[in-house]
């Protein structure tokens, strides 16, 4: 991933958007990560017969080209399904800016290059307002110095260092951790014979 994410932002002000809404269960019966773009936010984007809902923000120009979402509180709550993040990425979303994210969703996002900058409610509301502009509101997120620029708005966002580093490097956590194999073996050597170590025989 690049150090800067730029794009048109779309306002999605609903609070508590859960991962059932982001990726309804009927799209989960799969053994791959692919093919999830159509499932993403499906019940908000499409009606019961599969027609686009013209009133939904991502179905309206210029937000059909949005790559950044400005989201309500507690975005990504509920089920651990990483399919929600895979789907947002396949829908070309690079970042969601919000006030708070559910923990599992936050960690899943990091693993898939989806940036989740955290801002104050006041800043979020200003960004919601800014991104409602039908001429296409461009937002820029600089991961290096943790700033969001949007028109007159320029604010510092919150993101823990490990997540920020991982996003910038696009690193593979599994392979990185295996470099610590010696430390893991050392830890295992300290485990005594108590039952919980070998609970499955």
């Amino acid at each position, binding site marked *: 991933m690049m150090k800067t994410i730029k794009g048109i932002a779309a306002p999605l002000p609903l609070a508590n958007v859960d991962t*059932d809404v982001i990726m309804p*269960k009927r799209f989960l*019966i799969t053994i791959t990560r692919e093919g999830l773009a159509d499932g993403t936010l499906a019940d908000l984007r499409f009606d019961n017969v599969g027609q686009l809902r013209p009133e939904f923000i991502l179905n309206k120009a210029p937000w059909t080209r949005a790559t950044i979402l400005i989201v309500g509180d507690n975005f990504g709550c509920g089920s651990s399904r990483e399919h929600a993040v895979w789907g947002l990425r396949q829908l070309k979303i690079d970042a969601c800016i919000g006030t708070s994210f559910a923990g599992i969703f936050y960690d899943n996002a990091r693993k898939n290059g989806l940036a989740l900058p955290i801002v104050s409610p006041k800043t979020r509301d200003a960004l919601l307002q800014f991104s409602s502009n039908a001429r296409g509101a461009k937002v820029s997120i600089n991961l290096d110095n943790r700033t969001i620029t949007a028109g007159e708005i320029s604010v510092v966002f919150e993101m823990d260092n490990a997540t920020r580093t991982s996003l910038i490097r696009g690193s593979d956590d*599994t392979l990185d951790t295996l470099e610590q194999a010696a430390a*893991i073996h050392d830890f295992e050597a300290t485990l005594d014979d*108590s039952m919980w170590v070998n609970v499955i025989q």
Partner: protein
Amino acid sequence: MSRTLYDKLVDAHKVCNLPDGDMLIYVDFHIMNEYTSPQAFSGLSAKRLDVWRSEAHLAVVDHVNATRDSKPHDAASKLLIDNLEANCIKHGIALYGLGDPRQGIEHVVVPEQGLVVPGMLIACGDSHTTTYGAYGALGFGIGTSEVEHVLATQTLRYKRMKTMRVIVEGDTAPGVTAKDIIMKVVHVVRAGGGNGYAVEFAGSAIRDLDMAGRMTVCNMAVELGARAALIAADEITEAALKGHPHTGQFAFKGENWVSDPEAVFDEEITISGANIEPLITWGTSPDQSVPITANVPSKLDYVSPKAKAALERSLKYMGLTEGQSAQSIKIDTAFIGSCTNSRIEDLREAAKILQGRQVAEGVKAIVVPGSAMTRIKAEAEGLRDVFEAAGFEWRPEAGCSMCLAMNDDIAMDGERVASSTNRNFEGRQGRGARTHLMSPAMVAAAAVSGHLADVRDFK
């Protein structure tokens, strides 16, 4: 230095600090299901990695399987189930598959098989892994990339959470269950109020709960955003372990797995147990609940335009009128099941209400025991007879079923369900389905009444 139970658990599992600020923590035990693990196994294959310690993992089929029958109901679910089996065989991982006498909902079967003890760290690709906090173990849900990470390294990259203590003090009234306690907590702390926190539950109302009740509380703690839920190990925990063939010999050191008396929490909330009533949700978030004696909120109850708009949206989806009484809400379906409330204790509570009564005309009522063992035990106790005599459909197989409708138990558009489950999100039980969360006894009361009803009116 005084430490919280959470800090003790993290410290005991810390492998090392990482340069980026995270730490590596060791996972004692990892549980998988058929729907969040396939891409983790394919990730291993793509990276040509082996499983670090295959005996530390268990796979369970529970999310997509039909519960009417022991065979998959369609080709897509069969693919997921077969895929899990093939991955387990390839990597030497234990599997509780369809037809296995130990099969059931993962968070029901793990304690049932005696696989959780205080002090463990348990991860699983399912958000309700917080359930294990009932045993003084640190359990939390992870995504599929992290499932791959645990398989390959037996560790996770981890950030220490802030700590919150929720004290529920004072006896609860008859008819008030563990489900009502946690629904009250979710209502008070709100849906995202626990984001970034590990929550420890304390107080006399928590200590008085049996293990099943404690699991219900810790299970739904994730609905307030808590990444971990904990209850200190005590004599009730010890008795549960001693009474189980698999953990009977476990050297119980409960004193190790409690918060120090002087430990300081980042947040502390106290709730009066005596003030908790049986609750029902009226909206589309688990924190949108009212006592069964109360009314659905109206716009007058809110000040901000945003809150009024949110209320309007929820009520529209739920097909309710603002201010209508909770007990005037008529139901189409009653569902008892899920990792929150499908244990033998839950079935007994519901059966007490159903004894000698009939499900109301036009209501479809289903009960899915949480595991094969739970079902057999319930049948031996005569509970199946009670449920069936009342008009409930008794499912022969265990699974998540209509809690998240990944199998063929899908509620229809507009169908209203009184449900002993954990989430009332839009579309959770089916596209357009309307979910009301409540305790299993309250579901039974609603089933026989045809509308939401107060369990305390049933003697």
